């Protein structure tokens, strides 16, 4: 801890990492609860894995045309939004085959990414970074992207909180009140897609759904109000990501994996605590 704080003052990459954790936590703390209550974490999982296709393509073309390099996160954001749109339309209009299509998109996105990266000449260890997270490699440009992401997501949710809540709770009723539920549902998926891109920088493609849903799942054990759950899961996210960073620093273990272990462990403890405390109150009543 002490070593981390001393180094934090002198190394920019540590400052960037901590800042990225906080920025991503604000987005995922707000979107995660929607994903949990609307029960679309499978959709979010599919979106996150297709991201590899976009990242792979950008890395491939960056090596081919080094004079106009772009940040791979742009590729990630583009594919995430595209797959959110496709998955959203499928789940709205083709209910019977929904899970098949979503599962297929999941794998096709990854396959595309692997092919692109395999065909990229030269050094390709970046792949592991995107799969399992590499928060210590966050650049200043990434941070700007994360700020834009936060502004978009927090702004949209603050303005349309009531509408999103109503659409998630009772779609039919919301549509009778004149809301275009398709638009709200697709926007929710688009925001989930952008959040996933942010999370990929922190914990990587494979583990990002855990960081999206676990804080919200923990918070929803203790509150029955969506906005309180958002607040709580944002704080929990900040706690998990920053302590993951700190705890992994000295023993030199991967920070992404440490963060997920912290979140998962806390979730299990919270479940046990909840079970024991409700059991206790039943016993007292008898």
């Amino acid at each position, binding site marked *: 801890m002490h070593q981390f704080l001393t180094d934090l003052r002198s190394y920019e990459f540590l400052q960037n990492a901590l800042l990225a954790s906080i920025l991503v936590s604000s987005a995922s703390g707000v979107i995660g*609860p929607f994903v949990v209550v609307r029960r679309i974490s499978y959709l979010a999982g599919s979106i996150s894995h297709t991201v590899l296709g976009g990242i792979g393509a950008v890395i491939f073309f960056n090596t081919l045309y080094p004079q106009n390099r772009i940040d791979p996160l742009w590729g990630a954001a583009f594919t995430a939004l595209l797959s959110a749109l496709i998955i959203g339309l499928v789940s709205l209009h083709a209910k019977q085959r929904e899970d098949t299509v979503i599962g297929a998109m999941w794998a096709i996105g990854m396959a595309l990414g692997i092919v692109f990266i395999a065909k990229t000449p030269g050094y390709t260890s970046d792949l592991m970074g995107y799969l399992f997270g590499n928060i210590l490699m966050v650049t200043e440009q990434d941070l700007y992207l994360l700020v834009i992401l936060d502004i978009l997501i927090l702004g949209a949710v603050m303005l*349309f909180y009531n509408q999103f809540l109503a659409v998630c709770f009772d779609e039919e009723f919301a549509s*009778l009140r004149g809301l275009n539920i398709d638009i709200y549902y697709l926007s929710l998926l688009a925001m989930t897609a952008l959040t996933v891109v942010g999370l990929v920088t922190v914990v990587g493609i494979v583990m990002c759904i855990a960081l999206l849903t676990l804080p919200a799942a923990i918070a929803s054990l203790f509150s029955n109000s969506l906005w309180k*759950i958002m607040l709580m899961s944002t704080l929990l996210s900040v706690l998990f990501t920053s302590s993951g960073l700190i705890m992994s620093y000295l023993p030199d273990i991967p920070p992404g994996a440490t963060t997920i272990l912290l979140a998962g462990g806390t979730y299990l403890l919270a479940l046990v605590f909840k079970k024991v405390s409700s059991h206790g109150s039943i016993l007292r009543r008898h």
Partner: protein
Amino acid sequence: MPSEQVEIIRIRDVDFSYNGSLILEDVDLNIQSGDFVSIVGPNGGGKTTLLKIILGLLKPTRGTVELFGSNPSRSKKRVGYMPQHAKFDFHFPVSVMDVVLMGRLAQSRGIGPYSRLDKQVCLEKLELVKLRNEARSSFSSLSGGQRQRVLIARALACEPALLLLDEPTSNLDMGIENEIYELLRQLNKSITIVMVSHDLGYVSRYVQRVVCVKKRVVTHPTSEINGEIINAIYGTPMKMVRHDQCDSGRAGSCINF
């Protein structure tokens, strides 16, 4: 018909099929303002489907539906709808007030939080269903009967001219059922009410007309309801029942029962 009555629902020659099977056939139905009508029939007979066609949530395969004299998609905001309470995800984190406020979505400013007026209206509606003290409680912590009443309050928060209720008393014990019907009777002084109900005998003490749905739709004034009709709707062959008192605009033939 008194002259000040206005036609609120007008269904003509409607068929509805789903995945190739005919759910509703040749339906004609008129509901006037001030009516208190119950839709009854066996499970799977098409009651909820009829309700959703009235709301424009389902499009009929054939025929026309008018709500307040226009297409349901244009006039649906004037309806307060109460769906079956069993369809909700009871782990959803909302308070009673959150749920009732959803009734204000069409009236509120659109973006940002609900106004003070919205909240005041919702508290009044909760008062009406005797749940004002539960406004802050979690929706999932309520009993079945309380949830029904919250959903009625939400429908009322729309300040509707027509109240459509899908099984407002399912799974409730007699006492609460009575209370809800009594509340609806009070509300009927200013609002037209159409509700789906699975029990015919009980509901006929409160409503003026009963709409029977079993693929085809037949309307009876409550005074006509007797054992024969009940049998016909829920079981035995249709030929036992004579519908000669039904006027043509309000009823169809019952051959297919």
